[in-house]
């Protein structure tokens, strides 16, 4: 009930210039060199104590990296949206980034020169809004807010973008489509940027997947939705699923937090009960389902698994119990396991011939994709050997 200071989050590693960037368990963004297997101890933000927890993966635009983290002590939360130089890890926004007294949970996104961040309620303000979408200038200098829009709930889903439209969802169950373009028309009233809203049956906590004019997301009422964003407008009824436009809603029987994955006409949905569902992208009907032990909090990764002399597509599914499980995309059959022996809540990364898993205890472990054997492990806190 009282905020226990969150530790770690579930930031997934990303690759840039042959280096891996990942938010560690203490809330520091760190850089790892996969060629040497070492953590770059000279590259870290913040340099000293971490931000507490980083849930979103870093976003890289040009020479800069953007991300956000927060910590809470009692009821007081300290969040920071930061921008650092890819070259040295130093802040490009002065000593610190934009500090907000709130929880910053979801993935951030960038459209042009605008950084978009969903927040929870702000501690120091009492204007009744339970969450906000912040738009910041990405440019170096002091962190500056372009505009912000009040939302009806905590925006833990993060922000997904397509073109100049940003999609954000709240724990109140509302999905917003927001015009994030630089346009003077919206200056006087930022809320006029809202193009349409959609009321899901329950809270939306997980990320939204954008795919060719559609968005896919799950809620905490066991539903998965597909909405046609090109045909939706302000006149669309909030909670209406327009099947004529190819929209659908499917009950998968479990809370969905992980971002749905889409490939070759199949939507892969992972549930907090450890189930994985393959849904038809057109109709939403289920093709197969399977399950692993433990919760699936983040999206699996699609990769090519070696089978004899051929390769086949498979899902690497992170389990909050332990391990990364390999599941066939054809029928959901279990194909193998990357033995992390620690819970994994973040999406695994496939880079080169390796799979990288950020475990909940703060280690980065890597495995050979072909034989699933572990090849190395590093403590993301100090670069030391894993326990």
């Amino acid at each position, binding site marked *: 009930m009282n905020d*226990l200071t*969150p530790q770690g989050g579930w930031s997934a590693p990303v690759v840039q210039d042959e280096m891996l960037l990942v938010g560690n368990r203490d809330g520091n963004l760190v850089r790892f060199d996969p060629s040497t297997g070492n953590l770059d101890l000279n590259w870290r933000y913040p340099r000293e104590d971490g931000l507490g927890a980083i849930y979103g993966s870093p976003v890289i635009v040009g020479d800069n990296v953007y991300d956000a983290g927060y910590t809470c002590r009692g009821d007081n939360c300290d969040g920071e949206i930061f921008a650092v130089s890819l070259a040295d890890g130093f802040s490009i926004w002065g000593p610190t980034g934009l500090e907000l007294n709130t929880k910053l949970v979801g993935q951030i996104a960038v459209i042009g020169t605008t950084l978009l961040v969903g927040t929870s309620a702000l501690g120091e303000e009492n204007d009744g809004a339970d969450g906000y979408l912040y738009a910041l200038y990405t440019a170096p200098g002091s962190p500056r807010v372009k505009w912000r829009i009040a939302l009806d709930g905590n925006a833990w889903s993060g922000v997904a973008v397509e073109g100049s439209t940003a999609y954000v969802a709240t724990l109140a169950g509302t999905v917003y489509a927001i015009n994030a373009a630089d346009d003077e028309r919206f200056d006087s009233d930022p809320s006029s940027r809202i193009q349409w809203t959609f009321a899901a049956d*329950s809270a939306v906590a997980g990320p939204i997947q954008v795919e060719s004019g559609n968005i896919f997301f799950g809620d905490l009422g066991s539903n998965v939705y597909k909405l046609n964003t090109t045909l939706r407008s302000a006149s669309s009824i909030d909670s209406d699923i327009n099947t004529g436009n190819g929209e659908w809603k499917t009950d998968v029987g479990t809370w969905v937090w992980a971002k749905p994955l889409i490939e070759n006409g199949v939507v892969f949905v992972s549930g907090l*009960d450890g189930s994985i569902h393959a849904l038809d992208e057109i109709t939403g009907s289920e093709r197969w389902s399977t399950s692993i032990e433990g919760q699936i909090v983040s999206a699996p990764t699609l990769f090519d698994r070696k089978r004899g002399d051929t390769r086949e597509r498979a899902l690497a599914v992170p389990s*909050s119990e332990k391990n990364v499980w390999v599941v066939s995309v054809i029928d959901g059959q279990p194909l193998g396991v990357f033995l992390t022996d620690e819970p994994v809540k973040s999406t695994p990364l496939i880079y080169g011939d390796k799979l990288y898993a950020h475990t909940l205890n703060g280690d980065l472990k890597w495995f050979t994709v072909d034989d699933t054997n572990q090849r190395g492990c590093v403590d993301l806190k100090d670069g030391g050997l894993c326990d």
Partner: protein
Amino acid sequence: MEIFGILWLEVIMRPMINSLALLYKLLFNNFGLSIIVFTILIRLAMIPLTVRQTRQMKKMQGIQPKLKAIQEKYKGEKGDARRAMSTETMALYKTAGVSPVGCLGPMIVQMPIWIGFYRAILRTMPSTPEGLANLSGLFYGWNPAISSVPFDSQFLGISLVDLVSAAAVPWNYALPLLVGASMFLQQKMTTNPTSDPRQRQTNQMMLWMMPIMFGAFTWQFPAGLAVYILFSNIVGVVIQYYVGGKQPIELFGRSFLGTETSRAERAAQVAAEANAPKGQTSSPKESDDDDKSTEVLRKDGRRSNRNRSRRTGRRTRRRRH
């Protein structure tokens, strides 16, 4: 140890979390009402235990003089004599129909329920992403409240999730005061009169210290927990009033409630206390005790007087210095 974890989860935590969630759904999506109604239901369900505990405590109080007599009889003795004392004590318990565990037993049974309830409130309204994700595994599949998560934590203008100290005026002050006052009242009703001056002193200390301590702690409790403690105390007072035979409640030198009979009994008791030498019997029950216990009480009285004399002597000597 894993089996205890599973038992704790399946027998205590999950039923409580699901009940709280279901009540939330039924009571207009109001978690404050859910906490209050659930507290009342829990207290009502434990009435048999409360009755048993009250009876056991009364019986125990009744045999106190006899117990003291036995202790006095074997004072300073060792070896076989100590064993004989234990045997006599147990025989006394048996004759009086008292189980020493009977007084503590219900309290012990209640403890996991209180702790579980506290934990259930915390887990039902998580504030971290991890807490919210973990909540999914705690709901029963049939529970319709599952789709209402996260629950609205606002109640009477305060957030049940936040600390009482962070609540708006006047709630930040009112809740600790109400918790302290209700606890004082409950403590007052459950404390049995005693002839033992030391016990009386302890009772007095507990009567004041517990409410003050809990009132102070409440300042740093989540408001939801404070609401739970407050209503648990209020319901406890009501139950204790009826279970205890509608005894009058004495506050600030005045009697409140009670029946004519219980008021008369209490008046007689007070009169007896006033007339009796210090340290002697005060309850009507004790006056029915046999000669032996009365004799012991006299001894107690003398000892008390003697002790008082010694203390007075020491004070006198100090003054001389």
